[in-house]
């Protein structure tokens, strides 16, 4: 029986008022009741624009020219308008912090009901029921900062479910979540769909993470067009994902390296259902034995050493409990852990933003504690997550020169130094551009350049690739690696498992104010205990190795990464 069509795009096109060319061309797409559809594609491919069309933010908040038609439950979407559409479509935005409107969990869930003038007592009833559905009844009275990232996602979901919507639309639901929470979010979406029978549309470029649970259809977009619309198994067997800048699941890449060409019959879209013949398993195994083991790096001198660092915030929160960490000259390392595990606090202590109550901190054997923030910054550079939090000038040159000018360096010396830094960062051609004309990734580079110009020995970056698609991620990380090869020690605070595996040989894991593991990234991700405690996620390579009968999944991971780096170069 044909299922009811809820959303239907027919030869749909859209052009933002402020833009010269359309963002969407000739879109034909149907979403049916009870279906789960993943819309994937690189940044700028138009997938968020599609989401905005579905929920009505286009044209209500982002005006532009529409061609073709979009109908929701048979009615013209533009006529229904933002409010009309909100009865059918519930949108969960990417930033679960930003979309938290109410002062408490209960009020946030009730927000849509309040706007519908639902009577108070009825509202309290519905909120309770919905909270039970997503299992957050216990935290109804809590404020947003008192609950975890995963709970916030549940609250956002409950907040749209009170409307009894037919479609749940998720706009990059994984962007701000740690790996384990992201996995739970995908599981939660799946459960809710099964319980309510609504249609689910997920906009996301992290394909492997979404495929953790079954998806009916994958829609691949590129340059404003739909490139593929069909079952997930088939698309994984093609080369479409690589050419359109979406990262395929690591285990699929590994199979391809081993010479196993996936076919839809093998069910490559779901790791638990993946079927490999004995011959194929042997192929993977043989590839593993043929791959050379990557050479471990040589021993390096210690550059920064923290000993027994203890720190509590004013309110009494004991954020760091006896931290011992040594960072070696010229290395590139990850600091990982859940939100609140202490990794950001630790970096603040290193930069002198916070003063530890006890412990010692030395750089090249020299005590740091007496140095001011500014003095430390000459040696240790800190790049914030959101470039907009750092940029204060309109021109690129001035922004990069700011730190030098503040230090009283002469203009004759500033010019060559800034230009040299801009060249390193690939920004030299833009040196006379206003910053507002740059993309997010380029802005990120400007902020890195503005720190780099001070010639720090260590560079600390907070989530350098958050919210970036595969291409920008590779761009930023390759750039950082090139810097690292020029001798800058780089410390990355991150949630991204791929980043940690691929770019940083060493990883330090924080949990509840302590260092619980200090080992190679491959080792960390192959130790189930650490993975659970620190809210990380095992890589799919681990499971593929086990499936193929390889006894050392850790070594398999390492060899795969070495090979992958060569291929992608």
């Amino acid at each position, binding site marked *: 029986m044909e299922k009811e069509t809820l959303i239907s795009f027919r030869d749909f096109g859209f052009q933002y008022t402020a833009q010269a060319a359309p963002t969407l061309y000739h879109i034909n797409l149907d979403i049916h009741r009870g279906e789960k559809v993943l819309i994937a594609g690189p940044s700028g491919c138009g997938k968020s624009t599609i989401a905005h069309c579905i929920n009505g933010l286009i044209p209500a908040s982002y005006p532009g020219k529409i061609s073709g038609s979009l109908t929701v439950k048979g009615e013209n979407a533009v006529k229904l308008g933002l*409010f009309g559409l909100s009865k059918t479509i519930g949108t969960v935005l990417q930033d679960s912090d930003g979309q938290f*409107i109410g002062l408490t969990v209960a009020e946030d869930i009730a927000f849509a009901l309040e706007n519908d003038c639902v009577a108070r007592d009825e509202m309290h009833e519905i909120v309770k029921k919905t909270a039970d559905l997503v299992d957050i009844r216990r935290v109804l009275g809590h404020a947003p900062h008192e609950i975890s990232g995963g709970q916030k996602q549940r609250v956002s979901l409950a907040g749209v479910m009170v409307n009894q919507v037919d479609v749940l639309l998720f706009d990059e639901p994984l962007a701000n979540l740690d790996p384990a929470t992201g996995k739970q979010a995908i599981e939660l979406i799946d459960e809710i769909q099964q319980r309510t029978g609504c249609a689910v549309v997920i906009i996301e470029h992290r394909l492997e993470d979404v495929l953790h649970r079954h998806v009916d259809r994958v829609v691949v977009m590129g340059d404003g067009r739909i490139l593929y619309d069909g079952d997930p198994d088939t698309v994984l067997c093609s080369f479409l994902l690589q050419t359109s800048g979406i990262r395929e699941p690591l285990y699929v890449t590994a199979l391809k390296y081993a010479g196993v060409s996936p076919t839809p019959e093998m069910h490559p879209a779901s790791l638990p259902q993946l079927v490999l013949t004995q011959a194929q398993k042997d192929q993977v195994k043989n590839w593993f034995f043929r791959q050379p083991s990557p050479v471990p790096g040589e021993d390096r001198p210690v550059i920064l050493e923290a000993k027994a660092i203890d720190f509590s915030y004013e309110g009494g929160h004991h954020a760091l409990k006896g931290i011992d960490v040594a960072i070696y000259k010229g290395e590139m390392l990850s600091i990982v852990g859940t939100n609140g595990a202490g990794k950001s606090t630790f970096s603040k202590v290193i930069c002198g*933003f916070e003063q530890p109550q006890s412990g010692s901190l030395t750089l090249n054997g020299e005590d740091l504690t007496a140095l001011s923030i500014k003095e430390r910054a000459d040696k240790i550079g*800190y790049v914030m997550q959101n470039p907009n939090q750092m940029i204060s000038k309109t021109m690129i040159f001035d922004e990069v020169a700011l730190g030098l000018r503040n230090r009283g360096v002469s203009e004759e010396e500033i010019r060559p130094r800034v230009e040299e830094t801009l060249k390193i960062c690939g920004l030299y051609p833009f040196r006379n551009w206003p910053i507002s004309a740059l993309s997010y990734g380029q802005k990120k580079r400007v902020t890195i350049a503005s720190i780099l110009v001070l010639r720090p020995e260590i560079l600390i970056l907070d989530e350098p690739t958050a919210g970036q698609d595969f291409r920008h991620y590779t761009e930023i990380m390759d750039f950082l690696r090139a810097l690292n090869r020029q001798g800058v020690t780089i410390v990355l605070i991150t949630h991204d498992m791929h980043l940690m595996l691929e770019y940083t040989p060493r990883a330090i894991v924080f949990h509840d104010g302590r260092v619980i593991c200090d080992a190679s990234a491959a080792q960390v991700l192959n130790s189930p205990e650490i993975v659970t405690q620190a809210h990380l996620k095992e890589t799919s390579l681990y499971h593929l190795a086990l499936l193929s009968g390889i006894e050392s999944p850790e070594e398999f991971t390492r060899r795969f990464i070495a090979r992958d780096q060569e291929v992608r170069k």
Partner: protein
Amino acid sequence: MTNLFNYIDRPSPIHRLSGASKLVCLLLWSVAAMTSFYTPLLVALTVLALIFFRMAKLRLKDVSFTVGIMLVYVALNNVLIFLFSPDHGVELYGSRTVLLPLPGRYSLTAEQLFYHLNVILKNACTIPPVILFVCTTNPSEFAASLNRIGVSYRISYSVALALRYIPDIQREYHDISLAQQARGVEMSKKANLIHRLKAASTILIPLVLSSMERIETISNAMELRGFGKEKKRTWYASRPFTPADYGSMAFCAILLILSLALTAINGGRFFNPFR
């Protein structure tokens, strides 16, 4: 962190009143206290305010920060009044009783002292109820209360949102300021004024830019969930009025009438012991 808006959750009859009726009471009370200079009434109101304070189970140390600021304000207020019009009391009460002769206009008169006493009493009977309202009204109920007394719900909600985001913005300001200090922006008092203004701009521009992002997100989130659809809205946190609510509003209304009546009977706003 010290917070001016500090809801303190304790079980008390004052806490149990709905936010809307407390807001009405506060308004009635303030008008009653502000229109009158009738000293016995002001004394009575001050005593009542302190009793209510006690009933709400608030302790002085809960609100010491706010009280401190208020005391500084009251002191400053009185000093300035004396500096600019040391004879204001004389004009008001129509007599001049010099207690301490001082140079120029600044002789200390009993009338002026009595006027200052009234000013202090006025502060003493208006400030505690404000603190009382802020400390015993759940912030969640605040927007609902404003809306209930007739303020449009869009404005009420904006006020509530602003209150909610103050801590976030403070935290962000702090982070940005540290990162800019690391780039050598001098924030200490060592730098001269122009330097410091420039320094402030290197923090404010990023702060404004990132706040704009935040505003776009929140306004999209609100519209997607139907904010602004209807002319009215209901409130999850609102509470129905109880007899205590009606009682307290009636009580404050009587106080206001009393205050106005005293002004009328007395033939002026001022209680004059010098006549």
